[in-house]
């Protein structure tokens, strides 16, 4: 119990630190939200810019003349009351915007992560078992090549080759947007299927460029594990090769990759800023980009906070579950390996 309290304390501290640092940075982003919004509105209508400016300023969370400290205090006290502020860019409350965007980002991320780990672990283990074979060499080569391609390049290529392809099957995977038009949101087959189809290309961009490194580490770990005494003893004890592959080799080779899983969550959230822009996929990353572009501090802060919370939760879950995976690591209040 003690341990959970301590962990929660650590998580809250991390959150506070991120909020503070992020606020200082966001506050100092050059450009003015008001100018940006005024330009945008005046472009499309013939309203007097001064009137627009006044109406916007009256609804701002911060006094435009306020100092960093005043702004910070205003923001934090609003935050403590659960108010994330109003976003001019999104045209609605930040909390509404985020609540509506987060599930989509999580969908793409979990598709990518699950797919990537499933493929990499299986592939890496098979490569290890066939070390030095044609299969191993070819896959090592392909793995290195795909790993060195940046995810956004893969995204463009996918849009080009799949998204705008004429082949009937490839039309299944739309190159932009996050859900099919003319389908009402809800747990209907049409909607879920449509959402999945739209998530495929963004997820593939991560997967294709990320699986190689993971598969190669899995291969290396498995080769090392295959050389362990306990694998040899298990063979002599007459265990089936299936059991040895899963319980002995696979199980032990996977352990070091658990950290990669964590790192990949942070990486994916970070790269969603660019990727969701490319696919016009309205998730957290998309809004973060829009917010930075318009110097919309409340929205920026909202997206930072969401990402931090996601990473903190993932770390926590990983911490707790790692001890189930590796009995040598203790969790909870039995002590920690620092």
């Amino acid at each position, binding site marked *: 119990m003690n341990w959970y309290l301590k962990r929660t304390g650590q998580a809250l501290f991390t959150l506070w630190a991120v909020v503070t640092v992020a606020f200082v940075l966001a506050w100092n982003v050059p450009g003015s939200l008001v100018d940006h919004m005024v330009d945008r509105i005046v472009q499309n209508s013939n309203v007097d810019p001064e009137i627009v400016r006044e109406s916007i300023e009256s609804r701002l969370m911060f006094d435009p003349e306020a100092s960093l400290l005043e702004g910070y205090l205003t923001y934090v006290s609003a935050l403590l009351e659960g108010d994330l502020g109003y976003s001019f860019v999104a045209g609605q409350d930040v909390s509404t915007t985020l609540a509506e965007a987060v599930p989509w980002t999580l969908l793409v991320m979990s598709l990518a992560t699950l797919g990537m780990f499933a493929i990499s672990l299986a592939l890496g283990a098979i490569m290890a078992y066939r070390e030095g074979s044609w299969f191993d060499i070819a896959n090592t080569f392909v793995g290195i090549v795909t790993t060195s391609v940046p995810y956004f390049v893969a995204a463009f290529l996918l849009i080009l080759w799949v998204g705008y392809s004429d082949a009937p099957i490839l039309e299944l995977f739309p190159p932009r947007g996050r859900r099919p038009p003319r389908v009402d949101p809800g747990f209907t087959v049409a909607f879920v299927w449509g959402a999945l189809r739209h998530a495929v290309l963004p997820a593939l961009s991560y997967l294709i460029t990320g699986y190689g490194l993971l598969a190669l580490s899995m291969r290396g770990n498995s080769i090392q594990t295959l050389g362990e005494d*306990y694998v*040899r003893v298990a*063979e*002599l*004890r*007459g265990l089936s090769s299936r059991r040895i592959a899963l319980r002995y080799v696979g*199980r032990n080779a996977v*352990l070091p990759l658990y950290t990669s899983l964590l790192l990949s969550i942070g990486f994916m959230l970070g790269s969603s800023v660019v990727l969701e822009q490319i696919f016009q996929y309205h998730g957290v990353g998309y809004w973060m980009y829009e917010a930075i572009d318009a110097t919309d501090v409340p929205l920026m802060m909202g997206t930072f906070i969401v990402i931090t919370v996601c990473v903190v939760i993932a770390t926590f879950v990983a911490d707790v579950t790692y001890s189930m995976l590796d*009995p*040598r690591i203790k969790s909870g209040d039995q002590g920690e390996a620092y």
Partner: protein
Amino acid sequence: MTDQDTRSTQTATHSTERTGSTDGTADHVLEIRDAEVSFEMDRGVSRVMDHVDLDVHRGEIIGVVGESGSGKSMLASSMLDAVVDPGVLSGEITYYPEDGEPVDVLGLSDRKLKRLRWEEISMVFQGAMSSFNPTMGVREHFVETLEAHDDDVEAGMERARELLSDLYLEPERVLDAYPHELSGGMRQRALIALSLVLEPEVLVMDEPTAALDLLMQRSILSLLEDLREKHDLTMVFITHDLPLVAELADRIAVMYAFELIEIGPTDEILRHAAHPYTRALLNATPNLDAPLEEMRSIEGAAPDPVDVPDGCTYHPRCPLADETCVADDPDFRQVDAAHEAACFHWEDAAEAVPFTGVDVDADPQTSITEEHR
């Protein structure tokens, strides 16, 4: 024993003519003939075990001694036909079950080999530390072994508990633990229990005490002695530690440069070793009673497996070597009833390589053992 390979019977006919026992009545449990292990390497063929002939008597403890890289681990693996790839094992290894037909170990099908291993001939590896799967509880190691051999798990676990308590472990505590939660000595004993859970006839131990401290080594030795009596086990104990195995073994076989060079009853070997290498090895063995100045290391280094000297492999380091030794590889010569040595000049060895340790010469067996009992 019902799984007999058809090819196995033919090897049984030529058996007890050679090596070790001359009292033709000895009941052999394992016969190794002309066993050889070679590895293909870039530099050439590496022969890490060369023409080894050895009989293991039923119910005995035989110690196989040699320095690092002398081929003793290969000999241990050979007995279960478990030489690691890409090593190639050739020769003949015949296993004689208590009742039933002799088994040609190297000719067995995979399925029958699987039954032979652990059910008939079991093995304890060097490095008990790494012989358990770190992500699996100790109990599961026992259960999966029983299941893999279609054994009754209930009865098997009962045996496991008994073995563990015979080894002075608390059965439930050990079974519920993960390997890393056990100390080195506990893990070693748990591993011995695991290797005996299917009630094998022969237990091959490859440096089973190498990673343990001296006290733990001693206590494991006396436990092994008890186990042998209780379970009618035959043990092959492979080690580099001559004084250690001398406490336990009925007979000692000495390996040098991938060959067996001397074999005989423990007493005989300790008191009247006939091969110059064995004598030098005994002189090199640290002894509390021998003054430090009299400690001798053996001059030179053990040969490279790719480039073994012609003739007697020990000749470059041997004070007795002459042209014959350089030209010819000596066969085993009869030293005494059950004592053989592969040396042309075994009669002169005692004079040329005198024992330095005073007490070892006087009464080696007791001087080594009694201190620790």
